[in-house]
Protein backbone atom coordinates (compact mmCIF):
# COMPACT_ATOMS: atom_id res chain seq x y z
CA UNK A 1 0.00 0.00 0.00
CA UNK A 2 2.71 2.40 1.07
CA UNK A 3 4.79 1.49 -1.93
CA UNK A 4 2.01 2.31 -4.41
CA UNK A 5 1.54 5.68 -2.71
CA UNK A 6 5.24 6.46 -3.00
CA UNK A 7 5.25 5.56 -6.64
CA UNK A 8 2.19 7.67 -7.34
CA UNK A 9 3.61 10.64 -5.46
CA UNK A 10 6.78 10.46 -7.46
CA UNK A 11 4.94 10.25 -10.77
CA UNK A 12 2.77 13.19 -9.77
CA UNK A 13 5.87 15.20 -8.87
CA UNK A 14 7.43 14.54 -12.26
CA UNK A 15 4.26 15.57 -14.08
CA UNK A 16 3.98 18.74 -11.99
CA UNK A 17 7.63 19.60 -12.66
CA UNK A 18 7.12 19.22 -16.39
CA UNK A 19 3.90 21.26 -16.33
CA UNK A 20 5.61 24.15 -14.55
CA UNK A 21 8.59 24.14 -16.90
CA UNK A 22 6.51 23.97 -20.08
CA UNK A 23 4.13 26.64 -18.77
CA UNK A 24 6.90 29.09 -17.97
CA UNK A 25 8.74 28.50 -21.25
CA UNK A 26 5.61 28.92 -23.38
CA UNK A 27 4.65 32.07 -21.44
CA UNK A 28 8.17 33.51 -21.83
CA UNK A 29 8.13 32.77 -25.58
CA UNK A 30 4.78 34.55 -26.04
CA UNK A 31 5.93 37.54 -23.96
CA UNK A 32 9.15 37.70 -26.00
CA UNK A 33 7.25 37.59 -29.32
CA UNK A 34 4.92 40.36 -28.14
CA UNK A 35 7.90 42.28 -26.80
CA UNK A 36 9.75 42.24 -30.12
CA UNK A 37 6.61 43.42 -31.89
CA UNK A 38 6.18 46.17 -29.26
CA UNK A 39 9.78 47.39 -29.49
CA UNK A 40 9.78 47.41 -33.30
CA UNK A 41 6.56 49.42 -33.40
CA UNK A 42 6.85 51.70 -30.36
CA UNK A 43 10.53 51.52 -29.36
CA UNK A 44 11.32 55.13 -30.28
CA UNK A 45 8.53 56.64 -28.17
CA UNK A 46 9.24 58.08 -24.72
CA UNK A 47 8.41 56.10 -21.58
CA UNK A 48 5.96 57.24 -18.95
CA UNK A 49 5.92 55.05 -15.85
CA UNK A 50 6.54 57.82 -13.36
CA UNK A 51 2.85 58.53 -12.96
CA UNK A 52 0.33 55.80 -12.42
CA UNK A 53 -2.50 55.76 -14.96
CA UNK A 54 -3.53 52.12 -14.68
CA UNK A 55 -3.82 49.86 -17.67
CA UNK A 56 -6.54 50.49 -20.28
CA UNK A 57 -9.67 48.38 -19.86
CA UNK A 58 -8.73 46.06 -22.72
CA UNK A 59 -5.74 44.72 -20.77
CA UNK A 60 -7.45 44.29 -17.42
CA UNK A 61 -9.56 41.18 -17.81
CA UNK A 62 -8.96 37.66 -19.06
CA UNK A 63 -11.45 37.82 -21.94
CA UNK A 64 -10.35 41.29 -23.09
CA UNK A 65 -6.68 40.32 -23.00
CA UNK A 66 -7.34 37.21 -25.07
CA UNK A 67 -9.28 39.33 -27.56
CA UNK A 68 -6.44 41.89 -27.78
CA UNK A 69 -3.90 39.11 -28.33
CA UNK A 70 -5.89 37.50 -31.11
CA UNK A 71 -6.26 40.92 -32.73
CA UNK A 72 -2.42 40.75 -32.80
CA UNK A 73 -1.91 43.91 -30.76
CA UNK A 74 1.65 43.86 -29.45
CA UNK A 75 0.77 44.85 -25.88
CA UNK A 76 -2.11 42.39 -26.00
CA UNK A 77 0.23 39.54 -26.97
CA UNK A 78 2.60 40.39 -24.11
CA UNK A 79 -0.28 40.58 -21.65
CA UNK A 80 -1.55 37.23 -22.94
CA UNK A 81 1.88 35.73 -22.26
CA UNK A 82 1.74 37.10 -18.71
CA UNK A 83 -1.72 35.59 -18.37
CA UNK A 84 -0.31 32.19 -19.40
CA UNK A 85 2.31 32.67 -16.71
CA UNK A 86 -0.38 33.33 -14.08
CA UNK A 87 -2.29 30.28 -15.33
CA UNK A 88 0.71 27.96 -14.90
CA UNK A 89 0.50 27.57 -11.09
CA UNK A 90 -3.30 27.50 -11.36
CA UNK A 91 -3.03 24.57 -13.77
CA UNK A 92 -0.65 22.91 -11.31
CA UNK A 93 -3.24 23.22 -8.54
CA UNK A 94 -6.04 21.95 -10.82
CA UNK A 95 -3.91 18.94 -11.68
CA UNK A 96 -3.22 18.33 -7.99
CA UNK A 97 -6.98 18.03 -7.38
CA UNK A 98 -7.05 15.10 -9.80
CA UNK A 99 -3.84 13.62 -8.42
CA UNK A 100 -5.18 13.58 -4.85
CA UNK A 101 -8.41 12.10 -6.18
CA UNK A 102 -6.44 9.23 -7.76
CA UNK A 103 -4.77 8.64 -4.42
CA UNK A 104 -8.24 8.65 -2.81
CA UNK A 105 -7.09 11.36 -0.45
CA UNK A 106 -10.40 13.18 0.09
CA UNK A 107 -9.04 15.56 2.73
CA UNK A 108 -6.44 16.88 0.30
CA UNK A 109 -8.92 17.02 -2.56
CA UNK A 110 -10.99 19.43 -0.45
CA UNK A 111 -7.96 21.50 0.59
CA UNK A 112 -6.75 21.76 -2.99
CA UNK A 113 -10.22 22.79 -4.15
CA UNK A 114 -10.18 25.64 -1.60
CA UNK A 115 -6.84 26.87 -3.02
CA UNK A 116 -8.19 26.54 -6.57
CA UNK A 117 -11.33 28.49 -5.63
CA UNK A 118 -9.16 31.30 -4.22
CA UNK A 119 -7.13 31.45 -7.41
CA UNK A 120 -10.21 31.47 -9.65
CA UNK A 121 -11.85 34.13 -7.50
CA UNK A 122 -8.80 36.37 -7.88
CA UNK A 123 -8.56 35.89 -11.63
CA UNK A 124 -12.25 36.09 -12.51
CA UNK A 125 -14.27 37.24 -9.54
CA UNK A 126 -12.61 40.47 -8.43
Amino acid at each position, binding site marked *: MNETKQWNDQRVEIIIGTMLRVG*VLVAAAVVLAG*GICYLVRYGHRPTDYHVFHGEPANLRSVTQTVRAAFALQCRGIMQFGLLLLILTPIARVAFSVMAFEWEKDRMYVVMTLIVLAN*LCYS*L*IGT
Partner: protein
Amino acid sequence: MDFSYPGYISDDCEFPKHRMTIIEFTLLVWAGSLAAGFLGALTGLGGGVVLVPLLSLIFHVDIRYAVGASLVSVIATSSGAASAYVREGFSNIRIGMFLEIATTFGAILGAFLAAKTPSQAIAIVFGLVLLFSAYYSFKTQHDHSQDRPPDPLATKLKLNGSFPGSKGVREYNVYHVPAGFSLMFGAGILSGLLGIGSGAVKVLAMDQAMRIPFKVSTTTSNFMIGVTAAASAGVYLHRGYVDPGLAMPVMLGVLAGSLLGTRVLVKAKVRWLRLIFAGVVVALAVEMIYHGITGQM
Protein backbone atom coordinates in the same frame (compact mmCIF):
# COMPACT_ATOMS: atom_id res chain seq x y z
CA MET B 1 9.95 73.14 -20.33
CA ASP B 2 7.07 71.00 -21.32
CA PHE B 3 4.37 71.34 -18.70
CA SER B 4 1.90 69.37 -20.74
CA TYR B 5 3.75 66.20 -19.82
CA PRO B 6 1.61 64.71 -17.05
CA GLY B 7 4.59 63.43 -15.13
CA TYR B 8 6.18 66.85 -14.84
CA ILE B 9 4.07 68.49 -12.16
CA SER B 10 4.38 65.73 -9.58
CA ASP B 11 8.04 65.35 -10.37
CA ASP B 12 9.70 66.82 -7.31
CA CYS B 13 12.76 64.59 -7.03
CA GLU B 14 16.20 66.05 -7.52
CA PHE B 15 17.33 63.59 -10.19
CA PRO B 16 17.66 65.00 -13.68
CA LYS B 17 14.68 63.80 -15.63
CA HIS B 18 15.87 62.46 -18.93
CA ARG B 19 12.98 60.84 -20.68
CA MET B 20 14.23 57.58 -22.10
CA THR B 21 12.76 56.02 -25.17
CA ILE B 22 10.95 52.73 -24.74
CA ILE B 23 13.78 50.75 -26.31
CA GLU B 24 16.45 52.28 -24.02
CA PHE B 25 14.27 51.82 -20.98
CA THR B 26 13.42 48.20 -21.89
CA LEU B 27 17.05 47.20 -22.39
CA LEU B 28 18.21 48.84 -19.14
CA VAL B 29 15.37 47.32 -17.13
CA TRP B 30 16.10 43.94 -18.72
CA ALA B 31 19.78 44.15 -17.78
CA GLY B 32 18.95 45.24 -14.22
CA SER B 33 16.45 42.42 -13.82
CA LEU B 34 18.94 39.91 -15.22
CA ALA B 35 21.46 40.96 -12.57
CA ALA B 36 18.80 40.86 -9.84
CA GLY B 37 17.67 37.37 -10.86
CA PHE B 38 21.24 36.10 -11.13
CA LEU B 39 22.36 37.41 -7.75
CA GLY B 40 19.06 36.47 -6.14
CA ALA B 41 19.43 32.84 -7.23
CA LEU B 42 23.11 32.69 -6.28
CA THR B 43 22.61 34.09 -2.81
CA GLY B 44 19.28 32.46 -2.07
CA LEU B 45 17.70 35.84 -1.34
CA GLY B 46 15.48 35.64 -4.41
CA GLY B 47 15.56 38.21 -7.20
CA GLY B 48 12.03 39.45 -6.61
CA VAL B 49 12.90 41.24 -3.43
CA VAL B 50 15.13 43.84 -5.12
CA LEU B 51 12.95 44.38 -8.22
CA VAL B 52 10.55 46.90 -6.69
CA PRO B 53 13.33 49.08 -5.19
CA LEU B 54 15.26 48.80 -8.45
CA LEU B 55 12.29 49.96 -10.52
CA SER B 56 10.97 52.60 -8.15
CA LEU B 57 14.22 54.11 -6.85
CA ILE B 58 16.44 53.87 -9.91
CA PHE B 59 14.02 53.90 -12.84
CA HIS B 60 11.44 56.16 -11.13
CA VAL B 61 8.59 53.81 -11.92
CA ASP B 62 5.41 54.35 -9.89
CA ILE B 63 5.40 51.79 -7.10
CA ARG B 64 2.11 50.23 -8.27
CA TYR B 65 3.49 49.42 -11.72
CA ALA B 66 6.69 48.19 -10.06
CA VAL B 67 4.79 45.89 -7.71
CA GLY B 68 2.70 44.51 -10.61
CA ALA B 69 5.72 43.74 -12.77
CA SER B 70 7.61 42.22 -9.84
CA LEU B 71 4.73 39.96 -8.87
CA VAL B 72 4.30 38.32 -12.27
CA SER B 73 8.06 37.87 -12.54
CA VAL B 74 8.09 36.09 -9.19
CA ILE B 75 5.72 33.50 -10.67
CA ALA B 76 8.21 32.85 -13.47
CA THR B 77 11.26 32.35 -11.25
CA SER B 78 9.38 30.28 -8.68
CA SER B 79 7.87 27.94 -11.25
CA GLY B 80 11.16 27.66 -13.12
CA ALA B 81 13.07 26.69 -9.98
CA ALA B 82 10.28 24.54 -8.54
CA SER B 83 10.20 22.40 -11.66
CA ALA B 84 13.74 21.30 -10.84
CA TYR B 85 13.26 20.89 -7.08
CA VAL B 86 10.04 18.87 -7.31
CA ARG B 87 11.84 16.23 -9.34
CA GLU B 88 14.59 15.93 -6.74
CA GLY B 89 12.00 14.96 -4.14
CA PHE B 90 12.84 17.60 -1.53
CA SER B 91 9.65 19.63 -1.62
CA ASN B 92 6.67 18.27 0.27
CA ILE B 93 3.57 18.68 -1.89
CA ARG B 94 1.16 18.11 1.01
CA ILE B 95 2.77 20.69 3.28
CA GLY B 96 2.80 23.07 0.32
CA MET B 97 -0.85 22.57 -0.55
CA PHE B 98 -2.05 22.79 3.06
CA LEU B 99 -0.15 26.03 3.67
CA GLU B 100 -1.23 27.47 0.33
CA ILE B 101 -4.73 27.72 1.80
CA ALA B 102 -3.29 30.31 4.19
CA THR B 103 -1.05 32.08 1.68
CA THR B 104 -3.74 32.43 -1.02
CA PHE B 105 -6.27 33.92 1.42
CA GLY B 106 -3.54 36.26 2.66
CA ALA B 107 -2.43 37.14 -0.87
CA ILE B 108 -5.93 38.17 -1.95
CA LEU B 109 -6.32 40.27 1.19
CA GLY B 110 -2.88 41.80 0.63
CA ALA B 111 -3.68 42.70 -2.98
CA PHE B 112 -6.85 44.49 -1.85
CA LEU B 113 -4.90 46.27 0.89
CA ALA B 114 -2.35 47.41 -1.70
CA ALA B 115 -5.01 49.58 -3.33
CA LYS B 116 -5.99 51.15 0.01
CA THR B 117 -2.48 51.69 1.41
CA PRO B 118 -0.61 54.91 0.57
CA SER B 119 2.61 54.43 -1.44
CA GLN B 120 4.67 55.87 1.44
CA ALA B 121 3.46 53.20 3.85
CA ILE B 122 4.11 50.47 1.26
CA ALA B 123 7.66 51.78 0.84
CA ILE B 124 8.30 51.65 4.60
CA VAL B 125 6.89 48.12 5.00
CA PHE B 126 8.92 47.09 1.98
CA GLY B 127 12.10 48.43 3.52
CA LEU B 128 11.49 46.52 6.73
CA VAL B 129 10.86 43.26 4.85
CA LEU B 130 14.08 43.84 2.89
CA LEU B 131 16.04 44.26 6.12
CA PHE B 132 14.55 41.06 7.49
CA SER B 133 15.33 39.13 4.29
CA ALA B 134 18.94 40.28 4.35
CA TYR B 135 19.31 39.31 7.99
CA TYR B 136 17.60 35.97 7.50
CA SER B 137 19.79 34.97 4.55
CA PHE B 138 22.69 34.62 6.99
CA LYS B 139 20.91 32.26 9.30
CA THR B 140 22.88 29.09 9.83
CA GLN B 141 21.23 26.17 8.11
CA HIS B 142 20.97 23.50 10.76
CA ASP B 143 18.18 20.98 11.02
CA HIS B 144 16.16 20.47 14.16
CA SER B 145 16.42 17.41 16.30
CA GLN B 146 13.62 14.95 15.72
CA ASP B 147 13.53 13.31 19.14
CA ARG B 148 10.06 14.49 20.10
CA PRO B 149 6.95 12.37 19.44
CA PRO B 150 5.01 13.34 16.29
CA ASP B 151 2.47 16.14 16.60
CA PRO B 152 -1.08 14.69 16.46
CA LEU B 153 -2.45 17.50 14.24
CA ALA B 154 0.45 17.20 11.78
CA THR B 155 -0.07 13.44 11.68
CA LYS B 156 -3.79 13.86 11.04
CA LEU B 157 -3.00 16.27 8.18
CA LYS B 158 -0.37 13.83 6.80
CA LEU B 159 2.31 16.53 6.83
CA ASN B 160 5.19 14.36 8.09
CA GLY B 161 7.42 13.24 5.26
CA SER B 162 10.81 12.10 4.09
CA PHE B 163 13.50 13.27 1.71
CA PRO B 164 16.62 11.82 0.10
CA GLY B 165 19.47 12.60 2.53
CA SER B 166 23.16 11.83 2.23
CA LYS B 167 22.68 8.68 4.33
CA GLY B 168 19.57 7.39 2.60
CA VAL B 169 15.95 8.44 3.05
CA ARG B 170 15.43 10.72 6.06
CA GLU B 171 12.08 10.93 7.83
CA TYR B 172 10.92 14.12 9.52
CA ASN B 173 8.01 15.28 11.66
CA VAL B 174 6.18 18.58 11.53
CA TYR B 175 5.22 20.58 14.64
CA HIS B 176 3.32 23.75 15.63
CA VAL B 177 0.90 23.63 12.72
CA PRO B 178 -1.35 26.56 13.84
CA ALA B 179 1.64 28.87 14.31
CA GLY B 180 3.05 27.97 10.90
CA PHE B 181 -0.35 28.39 9.27
CA SER B 182 -0.77 31.87 10.79
CA LEU B 183 2.70 32.96 9.70
CA MET B 184 1.90 31.75 6.20
CA PHE B 185 -1.21 33.92 6.19
CA GLY B 186 1.07 36.86 7.03
CA ALA B 187 3.48 35.83 4.28
CA GLY B 188 0.55 35.85 1.84
CA ILE B 189 -0.49 39.36 2.90
CA LEU B 190 3.06 40.67 2.41
CA SER B 191 3.27 38.97 -0.97
CA GLY B 192 0.03 40.59 -2.15
CA LEU B 193 0.87 43.98 -0.66
CA LEU B 194 4.44 44.23 -1.92
CA GLY B 195 4.52 42.07 -5.05
CA ILE B 196 7.23 39.78 -3.71
CA GLY B 197 7.42 36.03 -3.14
CA SER B 198 8.13 36.60 0.60
CA GLY B 199 10.26 33.48 0.56
CA ALA B 200 12.10 34.54 3.74
CA VAL B 201 8.88 34.64 5.77
CA LYS B 202 7.73 31.33 4.28
CA VAL B 203 11.00 29.66 5.21
CA LEU B 204 10.76 31.23 8.67
CA ALA B 205 7.31 29.69 9.14
CA MET B 206 8.37 26.22 8.02
CA ASP B 207 11.91 26.07 9.36
CA GLN B 208 11.57 27.96 12.66
CA ALA B 209 7.93 27.47 13.61
CA MET B 210 7.10 24.07 12.13
CA ARG B 211 10.61 22.63 12.53
CA ILE B 212 10.73 21.29 8.99
CA PRO B 213 14.27 20.49 7.69
CA PHE B 214 15.88 23.50 6.02
CA LYS B 215 16.23 22.01 2.55
CA VAL B 216 12.58 20.89 2.58
CA SER B 217 11.52 24.34 3.83
CA THR B 218 13.34 26.28 1.11
CA THR B 219 12.25 24.05 -1.77
CA THR B 220 8.65 23.84 -0.58
CA SER B 221 8.65 27.62 -0.11
CA ASN B 222 9.80 28.04 -3.69
CA PHE B 223 7.09 25.68 -4.82
CA MET B 224 4.44 27.73 -2.97
CA ILE B 225 5.57 31.16 -4.15
CA GLY B 226 4.08 30.75 -7.64
CA VAL B 227 0.62 29.85 -6.32
CA THR B 228 0.71 32.63 -3.72
CA ALA B 229 1.73 35.19 -6.33
CA ALA B 230 -0.91 33.94 -8.78
CA ALA B 231 -3.55 34.59 -6.10
CA SER B 232 -2.69 38.30 -5.99
CA ALA B 233 -1.91 38.57 -9.71
CA GLY B 234 -5.59 38.34 -10.70
CA VAL B 235 -6.49 41.24 -8.41
CA TYR B 236 -3.51 43.26 -9.72
CA LEU B 237 -4.55 42.60 -13.30
CA HIS B 238 -8.05 43.97 -12.72
CA ARG B 239 -6.67 47.00 -10.93
CA GLY B 240 -4.48 47.83 -13.94
CA TYR B 241 -1.17 47.31 -12.06
CA VAL B 242 0.23 44.86 -14.61
CA ASP B 243 1.74 46.81 -17.50
CA PRO B 244 2.96 44.45 -20.22
CA GLY B 245 5.56 46.93 -21.54
CA LEU B 246 7.22 47.03 -18.11
CA ALA B 247 6.60 43.44 -17.03
CA MET B 248 8.09 42.08 -20.29
CA PRO B 249 11.75 43.05 -19.69
CA VAL B 250 11.45 42.42 -15.94
CA MET B 251 10.05 38.91 -16.35
CA LEU B 252 12.39 37.89 -19.17
CA GLY B 253 15.41 39.34 -17.35
CA VAL B 254 14.74 37.81 -13.95
CA LEU B 255 13.89 34.43 -15.46
CA ALA B 256 17.08 34.29 -17.52
CA GLY B 257 19.15 35.57 -14.60
CA SER B 258 17.81 33.07 -12.10
CA LEU B 259 18.18 30.12 -14.48
CA LEU B 260 21.77 31.19 -15.04
CA GLY B 261 22.27 31.66 -11.29
CA THR B 262 21.09 28.16 -10.42
CA ARG B 263 23.48 26.73 -13.03
CA VAL B 264 26.47 28.53 -11.56
CA LEU B 265 25.38 27.99 -7.96
CA VAL B 266 26.97 24.59 -7.60
CA LYS B 267 30.47 25.79 -8.45
CA ALA B 268 30.62 29.33 -7.08
CA LYS B 269 31.79 30.33 -3.64
CA VAL B 270 28.87 32.43 -2.58
CA ARG B 271 29.83 33.63 0.88
CA TRP B 272 31.37 36.97 -0.17
CA LEU B 273 28.82 37.39 -2.93
CA ARG B 274 26.03 36.97 -0.42
CA LEU B 275 27.66 39.62 1.76
CA ILE B 276 27.77 42.10 -1.12
CA PHE B 277 24.22 41.38 -2.21
CA ALA B 278 22.95 41.62 1.36
CA GLY B 279 24.74 44.98 1.57
CA VAL B 280 22.92 46.14 -1.56
CA VAL B 281 19.62 44.93 -0.11
CA VAL B 282 20.23 46.81 3.16
CA ALA B 283 21.10 49.99 1.22
CA LEU B 284 17.91 49.68 -0.84
CA ALA B 285 15.93 49.04 2.36
CA VAL B 286 17.24 52.22 3.99
CA GLU B 287 16.52 54.18 0.81
CA MET B 288 12.97 52.82 0.62
CA ILE B 289 12.27 53.66 4.27
CA TYR B 290 13.81 57.12 3.85
CA HIS B 291 11.74 57.82 0.74
CA GLY B 292 8.65 56.52 2.51
CA ILE B 293 9.13 58.72 5.57
CA THR B 294 9.97 61.85 3.60
CA GLY B 295 7.05 61.22 1.26
CA GLN B 296 9.06 60.98 -1.95
CA MET B 297 7.43 57.78 -3.12
